[in-house]
């Protein structure tokens, strides 16, 4: 068997980046007390708007910005509906996903079969020359590093900054936060926009780097995995990273083992991330009432109440 970590780690990191980005966005959204089930929809929208922007301008960077913008616009629709018009968050999120699958297919009609500009790999000077570790960790495209930096930033923001504390307060108890004078709805809209932009980036990563082309429905459920990851990680950034790499890693590992001609029970490996998720959920609920879930998650807020 010639599977080495040097081969596997870079593939794993690339395969996990879309769900990591989208999961990170959703984590912030849920921390603010909003449950947006439209991640899959925002991802697929980001995949096509990012692809369109990259093809039109020839610049992958503008492509990723386009993806983030596409996801954010859709998130804004969700924000206006759920925060402004007080619609049900679960139903609105699901509707958003169904709507986006259709919308992206429509937008993408004339982009099928086109090739996006190549996203360059950034070889970090000095570090990428380290034997073994260099090619494993330091020869990726910019988005992989971006996702890790964003992860650290979100962690620091939520843990150490005052706005992060306010965001968490809004998510834990919106009535109390409101009583203290914080603008609950406005803060949540910002969180939702951030979540949409991150999901859009994740989608754009799929269509610009990982596949790289546009095909209808190409996210194929990645958004749902990102949603599950947030619960798996108990709403904390670093477990989210572990979860994302575990999901991505097992997928890549089972494909690599098959490619290497190792006789493995494929079904068992494909199943294992889900088994681990269930296990984590069981352990979490045993450890005490859905440890870590924001107190106001999914509940509508109106200042008059």
């Amino acid at each position, binding site marked *: 068997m010639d599977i080495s970590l040097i081969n596997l780690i870079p593939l794993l990191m690339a395969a996990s980046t879309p769900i990591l980005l989208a999961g990170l966005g959703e984590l912030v959204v849920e921390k603010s007390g909003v449950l947006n089930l439209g991640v899959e929809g925002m991802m697929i929208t980001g995949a096509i708007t990012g692809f369109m922007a990259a093809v039109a301008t020839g610049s992958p960077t503008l492509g990723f910005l386009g993806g983030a913008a596409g996801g954010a616009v859709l998130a804004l629709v969700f924000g206006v509906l759920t925060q402004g018009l007080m619609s049900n968050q679960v139903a609105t999120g699901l509707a958003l996903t169904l709507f986006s699958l259709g919308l992206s297919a429509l937008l993408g009609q004339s982009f*099928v*079969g086109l090739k996006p500009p190549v996203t360059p790999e950034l070889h970090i000077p000095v570090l990428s020359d380290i034997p073994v570790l260099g090619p494993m960790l330091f020869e990726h495209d910019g988005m992989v590093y971006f996702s890790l930096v964003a992860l650290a930033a979100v962690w620091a923001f939520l843990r150490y900054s005052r706005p992060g504390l306010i965001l968490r307060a809004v998510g834990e108890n919106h009535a109390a936060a409101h009583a203290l004078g914080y603008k609950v709805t406005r803060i949540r809209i910002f969180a939702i926009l951030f979540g949409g932009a991150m999901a859009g980036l994740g989608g754009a990563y799929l269509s610009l780097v990982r596949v790289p082309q546009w095909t209808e429905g190409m996210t194929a459920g990645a958004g749902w995995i990102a949603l599950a990851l947030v619960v798996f990680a108990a709403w904390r950034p670093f477990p989210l990273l572990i979860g994302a790499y575990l999901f991505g890693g097992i997928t890549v590992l089972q494909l690599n083992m098959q490619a290497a*001609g190792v*006789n493995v029970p494929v079904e068992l490996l494909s199943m294992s991330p889900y088994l681990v998720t269930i296990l984590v959920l069981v352990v979490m609920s045993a450890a005490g009432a859905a440890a870590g879930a924001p107190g106001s998650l999914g509940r509508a807020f109106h200042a008059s109440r």
Partner: protein
Amino acid sequence: MATSLALAMGAATAALAADPVKVGFVYVGPVNDGGWSQHHHEAAVKLKEHFGDQVELIEQESVPEGPDAERVMTQMALTGADIIFATSFGYMDQVESVAAKFPNVKFEHATGFKSGPNFANYSARFYEGRAVMGTIAGMMTETNKIGYLASFPIPEVIRGINSTYIHAKKVNPDVEIRVVWLNTWYDPAKEADATQALREQGVDVILAHTDSTAPLATMEKVGGYGFGQAADMAQYAPKPRLSSIIDEWAPYYEERVQAVMDGTWETAMTWSGIKDGMVGIGEFSDAMPEEVKAKATEVMNSIVDGSYHPFTGPLNKQDGTPWLADGEVADDGTLAGMSFYVEGVTGDIPN
């Protein structure tokens, strides 16, 4: 005078057109997947062009295999479809059940093996195409490792793997085949990851039995040779796409719908290959040396003129037990239900 004649003819045409044949199509993927579903859809469009107002199309794309398909086909039958083409293997049991409920509606199921009084099945002998592609793959590989992205462990896919391996081995005795099962027809990201995994393992020619162009897009990035699957995928020629297996469904659809119009439709089990034009071989790319083109053409011609069958003995099963004696040709029954690898293919078929 001329005007009144034209009017009369117009009226006659209108009378004929008053009751168009309603034709339903169910697709497993989106109609612009660039592969399998798109080709069925394009054949449906040709059918419409051929018959004009005499047919009315009802199409439904991205229908998952399972209960959803049953709902979609029931709905088509209830809205007056005369004939329904279900274009994916996984619809087989649903077609069987809906066909039993609507005895007056004709059902046609692609690539399956069940049938009934109002339930015909049709398929193409893709393994003939795979024989040509396998020959090319065996000659083009430099690492002596070829890869196969397999979707589901169904006879059609297993035939493809076996045919590819047998013919690669004929031209390159050292060749190995690496099969990766994806358990999906359509997941571009997974197809891309699997292609990359095969490349990492030193595989340099990869055949895909999934529906998107993602494997070719990936090989364009990371190197290696591939083939168009279901569609020509000529936008990836001359590299990485070497040739392709093209599905040509339009003539069959026209023939069957005509039969419905004439009232002569009968259940049938149709299985056509390169000779009848149901399997098309895409143009050989200039990345192939002349001798490879010549050899591939030779294999193709011998299949077309009937002098050669891709499953001709001596062939053993994977575990070494004899399957076909020297010169013996596999019968269609065994091929239709094929559930074993031939000797030399490694790995297990998942259930």
